[in-house]
């Protein structure tokens, strides 16, 4: 102990350790290799996206005009003339129906998981939710067919219709929103919630006035991801909605089926007709634009609600 105390005198500076130049050089080299691989990974990963856009535009450019998105398909085989309005309108139908089911259910479950639930029930619910995310969409389609389309299941008997298809898509969307909502709420500083509770707010009041606002960005991302997921689904619609070349006359029963962009591409590509192939490519560009506009729109809604409503 006495020796140790001697070393620690003020006039005795800390010994300078030798710097290993070679080691530092090697580490710098490794660093640049890591950067190189990261950039390469991004380039390779994003290549398909650019390729898809290029290919779709290059093949389908002839049809990318206002008429294409504003008229119904006609001619023989159906779609040889006219546009894809039926599919765009159908997508709007499906998104609205799916969101009416999935947004309240997803947000509700997410809030329950992060704020109200007990630890043990939460772990079970979380597992079920992850399971739901992992269920293949074709399975959802079969389930949707039995539950909503036929009268065998719960007796809904909606037929092949927008309602049956939209609800099935809604169930695909729900676990995604749940996941993102829970994450968003968990990222809010605990002091917000504590502050509200210490004021005598009930948990519901704290949720309504403080938590939803602080988490709204994450919740909107969840809704957006959910919509983007279902917009590209075809398998669940095969058994619940299929396709309509015209406008729907309702949301259930005969005439209740709607068109759908992903389904349109799937069907057109299967037809032995060059024109329909080109139109499918053009439709995929429209689908990309549709998602882009939706993204911007929802971000705007998020911004406006944050600014003026809450």
């Amino acid at each position: 102990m006495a020796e140790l105390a001697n070393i620690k005198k003020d006039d005795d500076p800390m010994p300078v350790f030798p710097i290993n130049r070679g080691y530092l050089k090697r580490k710098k080299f490794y660093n640049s290799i890591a950067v190189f691989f990261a950039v390469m990974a991004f380039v390779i990963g994003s290549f398909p996206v650019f390729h898809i856009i290029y290919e779709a535009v290059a093949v389908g450019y002839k049809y990318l005009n206002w008429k294409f998105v504003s008229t119904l398909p006609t001619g023989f085989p159906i779609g040889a003339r006219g546009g894809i309005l039926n599919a765009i309108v159908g997508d709007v139908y499906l998104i609205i129906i799916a969101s009416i089911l999935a947004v309240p259910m997803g947000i509700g479950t997410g809030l329950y998981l992060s704020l109200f639930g007990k630890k043990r029930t939460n772990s079970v619910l979380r597992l079920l939710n992850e399971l739901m995310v992992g269920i293949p969409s074709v399975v959802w389609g079969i389930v949707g067919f039995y539950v909503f389309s036929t009268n065998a299941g719960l007796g809904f008997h909606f037929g092949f219709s927008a309602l049956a298809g939209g609800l099935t898509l809604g169930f695909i969307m729900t676990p995604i929103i749940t996941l993102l909502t829970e994450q968003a709420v968990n990222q809010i500083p605990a002091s917000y919630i504590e502050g509200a509770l210490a004021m005598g707010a009930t948990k519901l009041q704290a949720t309504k006035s403080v938590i939803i606002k602080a988490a709204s960005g994450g919740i909107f991302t969840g809704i957006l991801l959910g919509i983007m997921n279902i917009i590209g689904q075809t398998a669940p619609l095969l058994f619940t909605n299929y396709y309509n070349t015209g406008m729907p006359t309702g949301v259930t029963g005969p005439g209740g089926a709607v068109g759908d962009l992903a389904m349109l591409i799937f069907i057109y590509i299967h037809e032995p007709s060059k024109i329909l192939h080109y139109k499918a490519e053009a439709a995929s560009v429209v689908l990309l634009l549709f998602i882009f506009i939706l993204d911007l729109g929802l971000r705007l809604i998020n911004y406006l609600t944050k600014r003026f409503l809450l």
Partner: protein
Amino acid sequence: MAEQNDIKVEVKNLNFYYGNYHLLKNINLYFKKDSVCTLLGPSGCGKSTFLRTLNRMNDYTEGAKLTGEVLIDGKNIYNKSLDVVELRRNIGMVFQNPNPFPKSIFDNVAFGLKIHGIKNKEFITERVEKCLKYAGLYDEVKNKLHQSAFSLSGGQQQRLCIARAIATNPSILLMDEPTAYLDPVSTSIILDLITTFKKYYTIIVASHNIQQAGKISDYSGFFLDGELIEFDEAGNFFTRPKDKRTENFITSRY
């Protein structure tokens, strides 16, 4: 002992467990009406936990267990029939970090009124103004009441939190190291506030700053490892501590 009428909060045989960990060990003390009481002690000694037992904030901590009684105005707050919302309306709390809500300055103060169902706009406006004036913040923010609370500095945010806490007209104010993260100027403003506020509120402050505690307190207690080592009038506490451990702490030998 003080006279029965003067006692606002009385704590009897309070034990608090977190899982298997015995956090608060048999605490017995009382807080007098309209006085400032500081609870001193090193970090992690249970001051904050003790404060949070007084307004039942520990209800939400999983694995927490509590025995003993906390009497406010003679009523046990751990009684099953007690309304927690009503209790918390009566007890304002200010936290260590300034934690304004992500709302405007006005809405932050109005929050407490709104959640208790007050809809009269004139009343709310008047009350918000008054609270901000009490907290010494009104002159600084009167032109930007509807801007985000995050545009304020740390010291201003903390005073906003105080204004928010007194908006529901509580009779007790709990402060959990309210000046820990503030600069000296903001700190002295808040200490002055505490001294003026003791006319209206029973104030209980947790602190580990001995100098500040000495300035403001009427009563002081010393916590160590979940035990209440000493509790006395501030004069005796700071000049003639009875316990060796208290003396060590006050003279900063910890």
